[in-house]
């Protein structure tokens, strides 16, 4: 079977340490040169057109940029403060607040490791201060961090949507309920464990603290509103011949445009409102000096009125350049993988590989349930070794046509794949999030694995729910966007 040769090459290259992108690209090129008469020029063309011809993929750099502006330490701190004010007074409250903060941060950023780093740094330190064990703290953050790819906007979902041609908007909506459900299930599990083990609980700091921390975090939270309401439209009042009515106004932007608007908004908030970066940032030298002397006398960031020229200089300020560059670098590495995966997808389509596998499966009498179990297993194993977008672009083109043949909803399949990779990231022996957490917390891998196990069990239950109850994923998009047209 030619296809075994193709995937054999991909896996062999990956194992010896060839970058994912080049493993995919080189295997596809070699395969094409051996078994078809495509020219190398047509391969170079598809590499260029992967970017120039795919409007949906254009959302990826913008979402990455928005989350880079939002990932400055200040935003994460404000979100954690707001979460603690909301749920910190429960038994095990700080841990629950950690999950809550990860959920909010996940909605700002599209990546799981980034969520662990940003929220983990703050929450693990805070939890140890009030008497939680380091292991428990690491286990909580490691699991909650995986929500980063499930709660929209999610880069992985954009990748899925554009690889298999479904609507990004639908995928995002489909992630909302599973994301909330997973978060709530984790919180309940923590509450139960905390009650049994009699873990510390914080004090309720009053509605005043909730309100003032909300006001602080508001500008960050607004980003979520801009993206979601921009893509799906908002409730709106109209006054016409029928009288005063509440209507659902139509969408403002495409997801790509929403992402671009979100990045500009995030830049403005980070530079001119929070002033954690850019020309108005508080003087770093003053900060360290005063922190050593009196805490109360923290240096304030500069006021825009004191330096109005900052409106212009902020555009080429060193911090802006650095954030743009970091986001650009991440875009390059992700898109290089996706561009090469699109070459692989062409190979698979030309060879009719998925169709052949599908008919073989149908002939063998395998139904959708067996198929989904196979998908679960493949992704759980793959998710341990590989960054999720990379894994998705390899597996999606292969399983998608089979799923359609078997009558599985494309959106539902997308959510199953995302949840699977989430769990793959925290499944021992080598889940990616386990590595990140052990790095952040400075703990040995095995300690993190043990700490994460109880919550891993919770997410497994969640995976089974999501896999066999399609309504969890497709109810909301169908409600808001109407039933979906599936083209076979």
């Amino acid at each position, binding site marked *: 079977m030619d296809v075994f040769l193709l995937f054999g090459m991909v896996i062999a*290259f*990956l*194992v*010896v*340490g*060839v*970058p*994912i*992108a*080049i*493993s995919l*690209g080189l295997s596809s*090129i070699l395969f094409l040169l051996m078994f078809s008469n495509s*020219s*190398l*020029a*047509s*391969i*170079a063309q598809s*590499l*260029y057109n*992967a*970017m*120039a011809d795919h*409007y949906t993929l254009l959302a990826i*750099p*913008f979402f990455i940029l928005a989350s880079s502006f939002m990932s400055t330490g200040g935003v994460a701190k404000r979100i954690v403060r707001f979460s603690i004010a909301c749920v910190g007074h429960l038994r095990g409250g700080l841990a629950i607040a950690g999950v809550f903060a990860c959920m909010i941060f996940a909605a700002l950023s599209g*990546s799981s*490791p*980034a969520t*662990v*780093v940003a929220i*983990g*740094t703050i929450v*693990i*330190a805070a939890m140890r201060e009030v008497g939680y064990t380091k292991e428990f703290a690491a286990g909580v953050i490691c699991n909650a961090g995986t929500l980063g790819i499930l709660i929209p906007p999610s880069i992985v979902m954009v990748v899925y949507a554009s690889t298999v041609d479904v609507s990004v908007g639908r995928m995002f909506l489909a992630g909302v309920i599973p994301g909330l459900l997973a978060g709530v299930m984790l919180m309940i599990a923590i509450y139960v464990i905390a009650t049994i083990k009699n873990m510390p609980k914080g004090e309720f700091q009053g509605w005043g603290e909730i309100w003032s921390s909300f006001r602080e975090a508001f500008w960050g939270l607004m980003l979520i509103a801009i993206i979601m309401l921009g893509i799906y439209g908002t409730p709106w009042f109209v006054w016409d011949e029928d009288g005063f009515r509440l209507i659902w106004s139509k969408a*403002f932007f495409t997801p790509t*445009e929403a992402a*671009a*608007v979100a990045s*500009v908004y995030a830049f403005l908030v980070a530079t001119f409102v929070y002033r954690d970066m850019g020309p108005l940032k508080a003087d770093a030298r003053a900060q360290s000096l005063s922190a050593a002397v009196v805490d109360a006398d923290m240096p304030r960031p500069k006021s825009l009125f004191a330096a109005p020229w900052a409106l212009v200089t902020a555009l080429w300020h060193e911090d802006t*350049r*650095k954030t*743009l*560059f970091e986001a*650009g*670098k991440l*875009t*390059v590495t992700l*898109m*290089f993988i996706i561009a090469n995966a699109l070459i692989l997808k062409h190979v698979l389509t030309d060879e009719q590989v998925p169709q052949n596998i599908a008919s073989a499966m149908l002939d063998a009498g395998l139904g959708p349930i067996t198929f989904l179990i196979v998908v679960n297993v493949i992704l759980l194993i793959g998710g341990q*070794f*590989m960054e999720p977008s*990379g894994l998705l672009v390899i597996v999606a083109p292969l399983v998608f046509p089979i799923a359609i043949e078997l009558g599985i909803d494309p959106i539902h399949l997308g959510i199953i794949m995302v949840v699977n990779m989430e769990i793959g990231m925290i499944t021992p022996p080598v889940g*990616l999030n386990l*590595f*990140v957490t052990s*790095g*952040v*917390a400075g703990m040995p891998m095995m300690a993190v694995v043990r700490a994460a196990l109880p919550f891993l069990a919770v997410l497994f239950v969640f995976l089974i729910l999501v896999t066999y109850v399609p309504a969890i994923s497709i109810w909301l998009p169908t409600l808001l966007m109407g039933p979906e047209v599936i083209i076979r």
Partner: protein
Amino acid sequence: MSGASGFVPQGPLGRAMHHFEETGIAVILGSMTLITFVNVVLRKAFNSGLLWGLEVVSILFAWLVLFGMSYAVKVTAHLGVDALINVLPKERKKPFALVAVTCCLAYALLLMKGAWDYFANFANLPTTTGRIIPTGFEDMRPQDFKGYKETDVVPFPEWARGPLENWLLLEGDPSFENLPVVFGYLIVPVGAALLLYRLIQATGQILRDERDSLIVSHEAEEAVAEARAELENK
């Protein structure tokens, strides 16, 4: 985890190039964002828009990735699977790294030929002959002039019309309405050549034991080390 290199450029030329690459990536992404944003504002608030906006942004997107792929080789930012090479003892990593970089070089060489052939077809230049290994350039006589394909809506820069048309067009050809696509495609051979160059450099570094892999396992590796230092200071 392996990889996470705090890359430090060496020498004045190295530093200048490093700065140029990083600024280039930042400027391209910044312009893509601004053009898209301005277009949304124009459409929503003024019911107009930049017709060429989307096409220019798409071209810039290709430039970003194809220009940046070589930079990512230089600073070891490409994502990969390091589960196996991580469990190897340090002295056993070198053969694996050499096999990996050989595969990458093969990719870059194949891509280089493809990139040139693709570009040459739109630039009135001779393509290479041979299917896999270039055996030479095809003959190009004046009557083999291939003409220029134009972009859909990107306007031709009027200030450069004279010299550019003198250079590109033959006597009596109609003048350009839109920018020829070849300016966008230029990044394909340039990016492939840069990728090849950085991979040759990487091969040298592996041979001299200055680096032991080409990959990182996730995008936040640098941030993890920073976060850990911060957590331990608390």
